[in-house]
């Protein structure tokens, strides 16, 4: 009932050597991981199967909705003509840069706001404002300011990330226990030291939650940037296919986008484990 909370795995009472316990646990972990993977693939297979079946039976018009086999066909084609790797590379680079830039700016500002309740109160409505601007609406300005090259996609990607990163980092920073701040004070910590030695590590969990969340935003931002103006990239490919009403190709582009997102979020997960060794993961 509470398997995940009890710290020891249930074992029967016969005494066993440690080595065998270790082996069993490693095997259990592996089995657990395989079960998860199996379920994921199963789920995916069922979804795709239903979709394919529905379109092949004309229950869904394949023209309107595409079908997995057509999507696969486009993926193969995109792979063969090299556009898949090229477009994914372009968009991936824009995303990565926007992700890094947005998170660095947002997190740093969000954490820094911890320094002053007053400034954070003053700034609060401006942050809400920034977070609610439909940047797509400002496409004309984005193009004028940032041009039609990498800069405009970077700007879009960064903008999509920065507010989330800021708000989450700020929430993490202000969530630090007052008593722990008091402890730092009794140790003679300057405010700057409270910040570096307490606020930053204590906010890491929140910051990583923000990082995981913003992977998708950075990607969407980059793609929106490509919608505004572009010569290549996944957004360009998707938008073009969409305008020509080639739905399976739209989906093929979306599939590549998702794979990109999964890859980036995998990287963030690795980073988290590396930076927070004291934290329990499973």
């Amino acid at each position, binding site marked *: 009932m509470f398997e995940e909370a009890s710290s*020891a795995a*249930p074992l029967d*009472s016969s*005494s066993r050597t*440690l080595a065998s*316990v*270790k082996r069993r646990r490693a095997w259990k972990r592996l089995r657990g991981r395989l079960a998860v993977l199996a379920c994921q693939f199963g789920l995916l297979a069922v979804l795709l199967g239903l979709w394919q079946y529905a379109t092949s039976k004309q229950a869904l018009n394949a023209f309107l909705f595409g079908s997995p086999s057509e999507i696969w066909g486009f993926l193969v084609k995109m792979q063969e003509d090299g556009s898949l790797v090229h477009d994914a590379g372009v968009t991936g680079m824009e995303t990565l840069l926007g992700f890094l830039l947005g998170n660095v700016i947002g997190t740093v500002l969000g954490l820094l706001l911890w320094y002053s309740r007053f400034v954070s109160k003053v700034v609060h409505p401006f942050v809400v404002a920034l977070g609610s601007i439909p940047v797509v609406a400002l496409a004309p300005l984005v193009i004028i300011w940032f041009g039609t090259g990498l800069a405009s996609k970077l700007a879009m990607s960064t903008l999509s990330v920065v507010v989330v990163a800021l708000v989450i980092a700020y929430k993490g920073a202000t969530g630090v226990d007052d008593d722990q701040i008091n402890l730092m004070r009794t140790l003679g910590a300057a405010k700057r030291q409270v910040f570096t030695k307490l606020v930053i590590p204590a906010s890491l969990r929140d910051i990583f939650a923000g990082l995981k969340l913003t992977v998708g935003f950075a990607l969407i931002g980059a793609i929106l940037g490509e919608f505004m103006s572009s010569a290549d990239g996944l957004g360009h490919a998707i938008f073009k296919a969409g305008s020509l009403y080639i739905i399976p190709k739209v989906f093929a582009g979306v599939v590549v986008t998702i794979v990109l997102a999964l890859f980036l979020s995998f990287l963030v997960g690795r980073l988290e484990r590396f930076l927070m060794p004291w934290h329990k993961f499973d």
Partner: protein
Amino acid sequence: MPESETPYSATGTPGKSGAPLTARNIGKTYGDDDDASPVIGDISFSLKAGEIVSLVGPSGCGKTTLLNLMSGLVRPTRGDVLWHGKPLTDVPKGIGYMLQKDMLMSWRTALANVTLGLELTGMPRAEREKKAHAMLYKVGLGPFHDYYPTALSGGMRQRVALARTLVTGPDVILLDEPFAALDFQTKVVLESDMAKLVRSDGRSVLLITHDVEEAVSLSDRVIVLTHRPSRIKAIHDIRLQGDRSDMMAMRDAPGFAALVRKIWSELDVRMAET
């Protein structure tokens, strides 16, 4: 590990009915990698109905771990914990466990923290609040019922936790240093109250304490544990004359001082080599 290695065998036959809670050769090792650290070596004992048993032992020897095992919160690496003769798999109904950390919920007032256990049984609001009020009053916190935990002192928090544990009227009560943050007087009053409650209703208490005088004055038995990996070093049956629920009188009973000295000497200090 063969039973013969245990220096003291348990009082009472493990698993015999009448003993609600029994440890049968339990052991616990943390970590399953190369740095496995055994914390509980091999421990067997029973807690009988109407009995108060104290566990004393050096800091870090595994008392809290032992209580976690006895409560069913954590499974032993070896051996079994028996609840009325059957192996435990989860926390059984009828057990009340006061953890070492008070774990009050910051979003509940003192009163609401105390009612928590009753709420879980589905008791109507008016009834459970009446009970909780009475219990808060007993632990001396009547006027503080609407305080949130952040506005309570350490000792007050501990008393709220105690009230939360007792208010549901569990048959077996496990207490992890319940009076550690209390002044002598408050402690003595609460000890006496609890002794009365337990002995009159045939409940049982298993209690961790660092205060040997407390252990001796309150308990029927004191179990002394060794350093980790802990085993039972000694078991003392306390047979003092006088009103066993008057804690002050107990301290003056003949034989009290000698017993306390004896137990102190058994808890020999081995600092810096723990």
